[in-house]
């Protein structure tokens, strides 16, 4: 109903002569040599043609230029200059010939040459001596044919809210331009005038700064479209996109832009990206950075706040992209590589991060000028872990840096040098692929070395390895990291343990045993570990470890530490509730035999049946039949049992993210490629 109304309204406005100025903004359909038709006649014909375009979504064009020589090629040129619709029919005349051109699949199917040259041309020629009448006959006949086609084929090829995209007659207070294309189309009037003014200005500034259209649209309804499709179409059909101009080969690339669409009917929103914005606004960036910024505002109906947050978020993400690396869930980014190339490296880095809590990052982009500044900023804002090692390769040089106590401890001294040695030959030779592989291999080797037995000499490699394996196993089984730290010269074992615990331990539950030649002390971190390692139990642990230390038997001390710790961790208090329940159940079970004894005392009871007095074989069935009375069938919707899984509980805190880095894209009805995300607010 709404649609019909809006079409009628537009038609009414267009016919009204007072508003005929508006006709300048709409396509012109009829061109003739000067003097053949009056201005009023032309206007009438154009209005009729525009009506057809609105009704049938096919433009019907006509020209008569008597002096054109190569008619077919001129018709092509005419079409590229004047045709505004996706589907159109052009009828061109010069002094001698006529030529039909169909543009778009609908026009080709609905108006094949056979139809044009018989039905349409016949109608056109049937009118004699009246140029306007001839043209009207052409337009009306074509309209008839298109109407019939639409009646049988529908409008599947085009968006169904035709007027909704047309910004040409939308008043300025709805479509704020701030110069150029409208950046804010607030059809729902969610913002006040001053808010809208400021916002459209801000969007325009961001767009200009990063050469990327940033657009916000609010509508009442999506018609039958999905929010995503609506946003894509709105973007495409209104010609958004920075840099969407044909190059020298006549190929127009998708323009760069991002569009936020709000539909108030079902509170849908969609973010559509296009062109280079697809890479700048990765799935991860949109869903974990952008949406958390603006969605809370929208949910609480603070649209001004939400749109401002969206604008700021776009600013941030465009900044990240322009600086070299789009905001993404990726640890390896090499400018120029495809998503699939990056994927395997990222997966590897992510699994390492999940397992050991140390992020490994490799960034290469010649756009990065100041490598060190970028590196510091990256570590500050863009790493996902407290502990990480980051290599940034910029235009002229590369730099590696670690952050966090654990990463620092792992990559200290020789290990750090080993990383540089592994990577340098490849980077010098310009072999980024080799560099990434070597870098990852070396870093993983270092990170995965579970060095929880930390001694300065005095212990054999074998004993150390065994101890590490044992402690690692305990950590994997019980989630408590155990460290054995030996420094013969340390003055205070307790201080040793405590400082290591606070500086170098990244696990949330950890126990550090600090030891010197004479004794040991224990420091504990994390609620679970503290619950297990109580003072009394620690005292027992220390008492078992110390004799080995005094004898200088470090291997024995490590074993004692591991053994006692395992006992402490695996000890569990008796579950008194279970015990009580089982005891009560036992007591109740006990009633059964006792009550059986009670029944022994009773031997008097009335007989209820006469089974014993029935003569053997005298029982005979004389009738045994089942009569079907009727059947009824009930039907319920089949419910598929989905297995529910509960998340969380993992020690790494990684969570179940499905992001693999990069952006997923889809193709919109207009053929443009878009990225983005949609949902409800």
């Amino acid at each position, binding site marked *: 109903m709404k649609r019909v109304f809006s079409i009628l309204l537009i038609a009414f406005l267009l016919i009204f002569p007072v508003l005929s100025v508006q006709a300048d903004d709409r396509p012109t359909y009829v061109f003739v040599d000067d003097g053949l038709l009056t201005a009023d006649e032309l206007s009438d014909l154009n209005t009729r043609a525009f009506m057809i375009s609105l009704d049938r979504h096919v433009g019907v064009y006509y020209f008569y230029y008597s002096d054109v020589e190569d008619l077919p090629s001129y018709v092509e040129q005419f079409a590229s200059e004047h045709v505004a619709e996706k589907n159109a029919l052009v009828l061109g005349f010069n002094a001698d010939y006529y030529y039909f051109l169909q543009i778009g699949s609908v026009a080709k199917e609905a108006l094949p040459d056979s139809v044009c040259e018989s039905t349409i041309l016949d109608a056109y020629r049937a009118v004699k001596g009246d140029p306007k009448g001839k043209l009207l006959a052409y337009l009306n006949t074509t309209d008839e044919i298109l109407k019939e086609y639409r009646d049988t084929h529908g409008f599947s090829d085009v968006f169904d809210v035709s007027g909704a995209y047309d910004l040409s007659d939308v008043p300025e207070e709805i479509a704020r331009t701030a110069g150029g294309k409208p950046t804010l189309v607030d059809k729902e009037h969610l913002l006040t005038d001053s808010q809208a003014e400021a916002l459209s200005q801000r969007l325009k500034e961001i767009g200009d700064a990063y050469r990327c259209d940033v657009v916000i649209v609010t509508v009442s309804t999506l018609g039958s479209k999905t929010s995503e499709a609506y946003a894509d179409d709105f973007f495409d059909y209104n010609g958004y996109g920075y840099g969407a101009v044909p190059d020298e080969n006549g190929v127009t690339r998708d323009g760069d832009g991002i569009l936020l669409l709000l539909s108030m009917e079902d509170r849908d929103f969609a973010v559509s990206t296009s062109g280079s914005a697809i890479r700048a606004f990765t799935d991860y960036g949109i869903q974990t950075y952008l949406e958390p910024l603006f969605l809370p505002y929208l949910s609480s109906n603070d649209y001004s706040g939400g749109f401002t947050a969206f604008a700021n978020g776009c600013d941030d993400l465009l900044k990240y992209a322009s600086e070299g690396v789009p905001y993404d869930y990726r640890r390896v980014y090499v400018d120029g590589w495809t998503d699939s190339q990056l994927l395997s490296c990222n997966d590897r880095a992510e699994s390492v991060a999940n397992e050991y809590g140390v992020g490994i990052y490799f960034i290469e982009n010649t756009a990065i000028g100041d490598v060190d500044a970028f590196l510091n900023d990256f570590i500050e804002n863009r790493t996902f872990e407290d502990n990480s090692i980051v290599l940034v390769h910029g235009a002229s040089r590369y730099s590696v840096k670690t952050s966090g106590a654990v990463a620092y401890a792992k990559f200290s001294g020789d290990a750090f040098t080993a990383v540089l040695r592994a990577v340098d030959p490849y980077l010098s030779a310009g072999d980024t692929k080799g560099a990434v592989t070597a870098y990852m291999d070396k870093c993983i080797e270092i990170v995965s070395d579970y060095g929880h037995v930390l001694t300065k000499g005095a212990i054999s490699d074998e004993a150390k390895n065994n101890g590490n394996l044992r402690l690692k196993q305990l950590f994997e089984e019980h989630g408590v990291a155990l460290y054995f730290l030996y420094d013969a010269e340390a003055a205070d074992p307790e201080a040793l343990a405590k400082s290591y615990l606070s500086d170098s331990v990244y696990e949330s539950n950890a126990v550090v045993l600090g030891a010197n030649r004479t004794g040991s002390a224990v420091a504990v971190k994390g609620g679970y570990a503290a619950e297990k390692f109580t003072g009394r139990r620690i005292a027992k642990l220390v008492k078992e470890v110390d004799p080995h230390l005094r004898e200088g038997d470090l291997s024995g001390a490590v074993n004692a530490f591991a053994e006692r710790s395992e006992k402490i961790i*695996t000890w*569990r208090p*008796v*579950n008194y509730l*279970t*015990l009580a329940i*089982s*005891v*009560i*159940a*036992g*007591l*109740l*079970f*006990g*009633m*059964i*035999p*006792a*009550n059986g*004894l*009670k029944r*022994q*005392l*009773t*031997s*008097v*009871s*009335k*007989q*209820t*049946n*006469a*089974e*014993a*007095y*029935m*003569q053997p074989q*005298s*029982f*005979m*069935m*004389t*009738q*045994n*039949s*089942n*009569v*079907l*009375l*009727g*059947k*009824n*069938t*009930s*039907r*319920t*919707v*089949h*419910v598929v049992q989905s297995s529910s899984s509960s998340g969380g509980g993992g020690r790494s805190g990684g969570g179940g993210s499905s992001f693999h880095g990069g952006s997923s894209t889809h193709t919109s009805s207009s053929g443009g490629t878009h990225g983005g995300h949609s949902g409800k607010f």
Partner: protein
Amino acid sequence: MPQQLLEYRCPACGASLQFDSGSQQVVCPYCDSSFSPQELIDYDSFLREDAKNETSDPWSKDTERWEKDDATGLNVYTCAACGGEVLGDDTLASARCPFCDNTVIMKRQFTGEWKPDLVLPFKLDKKAAQDAFRKHLHGKKLLPKAFRSESCIEEIKGMYVPFWLFSTDVSASMRFKGSTSRAWSDGKYDYVETSNYALLRAATARFDRIPVDGSEKMDDALMDSLEPFDYSAAVDFQTAYLSGFFSDRYDVEADISVKRAKTRFNKTMQDRIVATTGGFSSVAAESMTVSEHNNKREYALLPVWLLHVKWKDQLYTFAMNGQTGKLVGNLPLDKGRLWMYRLLYGGIFAGILGGLVLLGHFMGCGGGCL
């Protein structure tokens, strides 16, 4: 008409005769003569012939007087042997004189409609009853300990209890409503098809000699519990079998007793028919009709040893099937011992379960495996 108190006397020495359950003979406790019941019947009819001929008929002598004591509702009989008074109610049919232990039989209680069709003679004697009682107490853990030592058998008497025996051909028909269901799914919908049936069942069966005790005085449940009796040992009624035992005539009419028999065979028919209605997911009985044919009822005297046991001023009644030796009777419960056993067994089970929990805990599954 004067009540005739029938007394069998030894043809040899004139002493009072008794039926010996062991030898199934009538014996004289004084001269050890023994007679088969048939001999005695013949002798009896011979005496009757005599009595007809002689005026000095011992049975028509004024030795069997009875008078009704209006105050107590009891009849007073005079023992033919010693002249002592025997008290008895309206139904008393045979008894023993409390003074001289002679058997007295009220002949009038066995004439006309009160003539039993058959009698099942005693197979077990008083001693067997006492033994059975002692055995009954054996192995009853919750019986008060003192009951065994302190209880005394106040009275033990062999008694022919009047029973009605009902025989009949029963036809029963029942109607049930039954349904079956079948479920399937085509991926989009789940279907359940329910088929409703009327189940028609009819059956016949022959029931033989369902016993129902016809004595008001006897507890129905106690008498029921004595079953079964082996009727193959039953003989035609002769008063000679009553010698030495008490007996009553029925005082519950057959019309009333038959109701109990009906309840029993109806239940049996119902159970048997319901058992044929398998294969349905739900079955509900909707109606049942029962008819009987070829009904036959018999009046029988069945042998029962009654034991009255006194303990702590309370009387406990036990009954023993005089034919099979099955002894029934509820025993007192020692509540203290009941709780003792409950706690004992409860403790054992609780110990086992608790032990398993603790074992599971220390074996490493954290007590969560139970």
